[in-house]
């Protein structure tokens, strides 16, 4: 992702003959996270064929994109720090999946306002982010990270599952793709919950503490908003509260099988979708955005 085309105009990139040959083919704005040089295929290309979203749908896409982006940034931290190397790889892979979902959602959201995914990711301030607070909470120890993965991936699985029948074809397409990947995330979290919860007294206590720490942010995932209600009437969005019962059933089953207790902590009050965040988001964004802001237009 990058904010500005390196060459300013979206014109030919560099002097490489192949690049010149294909200049302008579905590639008007360079993206800094392109792994390969040349004219990469990016979520913008997805959006080329899709009609732009209306304002409500664009905002909804922004919400879901922000959730995925912020959690991806959190999880990527674990690379080289997880308890075992396989977990570096696993959490890195999960983060990459989430980043893929974020790019699709944010691209769709950005199309409405004539921006790019990078404008949204790198050039908004913390109060302009709409992610749920559970995604921005510090990773804590591995137990807390796994607890959040269970709570949030289960929510995403139910949400995307319902969104596959959205009347908005782009949202339905992104959700159908993401759903398959999120099913693996749920499985990963479930297996770790069982191992940690039903493991040693130390692992049991730490994953329980992780659940307790994350629980106050659960309620917000199921808070209905005027926007979701309006969009649900048109069949575009899912009413968040409609997911709660099934979510609780699934999460409770895993928690109990792991010999852990479902927390009873009260909900933390705030309104993330309106830009109210915990202090943690600012630090996360500082790290995520510094390179793009320090070197506008840089690609890496």
């Amino acid at each position: 992702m990058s904010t500005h085309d390196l060459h300013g105009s979206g014109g030919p990139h560099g002097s490489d003959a192949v690049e010149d040959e294909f200049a302008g083919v579905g590639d008007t704005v360079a993206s800094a996270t392109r792994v390969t040089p040349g004219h990469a295929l990016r979520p913008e290309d997805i959006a080329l064929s899709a009609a732009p979203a209306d304002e409500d749908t664009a905002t909804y896409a922004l919400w879901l994109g922000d959730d995925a982006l912020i959690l991806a940034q959190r999880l990527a931290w674990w690379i080289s720090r997880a308890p075992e190397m396989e977990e570096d790889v696993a959490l890195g892979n999960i983060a990459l999946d989430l980043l893929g979902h974020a790019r699709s959602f944010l691209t769709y959201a950005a199309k409405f306002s004539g921006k790019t995914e990078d404008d949204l990711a790198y050039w908004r301030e913390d109060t302009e982010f709409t992610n749920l607070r559970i995604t921005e909470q510090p990773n804590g120890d591995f137990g807390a990270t796994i607890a959040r993965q269970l709570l949030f991936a289960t929510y995403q699985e139910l949400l995307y599952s319902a969104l596959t029948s959205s009347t908005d074809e782009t949202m339905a397409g992104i959700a159908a793709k993401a759903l398959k990947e999120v099913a693996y995330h749920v499985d990963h979290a479930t297996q770790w919950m069982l191992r940690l919860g039903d493991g040693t007294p130390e692992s049991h206590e730490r994953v329980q503490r992780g659940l307790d720490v994350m629980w106050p942010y659960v309620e917000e995932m199921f808070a209905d908003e005027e926007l979701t209600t309006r969009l649900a009437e048109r069949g575009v969005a899912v009413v968040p509260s409609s997911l709660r019962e099934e979510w609780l059933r699934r999460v409770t089953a895993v928690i109990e099988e792991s010999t852990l207790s479902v927390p009873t902590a009260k909900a933390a009050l705030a309104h993330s979708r309106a830009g109210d965040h915990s202090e943690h988001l600012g630090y996360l964004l500082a790290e995520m955005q510094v390179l793009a802001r320090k070197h506008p237009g840089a690609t890496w």
Partner: protein
Amino acid sequence: MTTTREDQLRSIAATVNDPEIPVLSIEDLGILRDVRTEGDGVVVTITPTYSGCPAMDTIADDLRIAFREAGYADARVELTLSPAWTTDWMSQEGKGKLAAYGIAPPTGIRDGSRVRVGMSVKCPHCDSLDTREISHFGSTSCKALYVCNACHEPFDHFKVI
């Protein structure tokens, strides 16, 4: 026997291999969804295996280069997310190539079901069915890490999605 222009174009596209798994063409993998002409140009439609798969960028570049070398200067690559890719689309030939390359191919059929039947994964080195998963997630998004209990060799398994 006559081949249509569409067949010819498809065979050009099918020369492009997956950069991460170079023994598989994008056709073997099932990510080549459509090749069609549009005016004087060619439009190739591919679908990603995983949302964040970085190989898609390389594949798109390789497709444009393959068509340019075949005389089609105006080749456009489109990405479609829907319908979402499934390992069910991988060809039998592709699965054979994977196994010969040392990667256990996807087992069973996903077929829209949420329930993944746990089938044994055969070790690509010694053919033993006595294997176990070390990690759901491997060197690329599409693979899981396994080890063989018989020959003790680790290997990649292409996940069923």
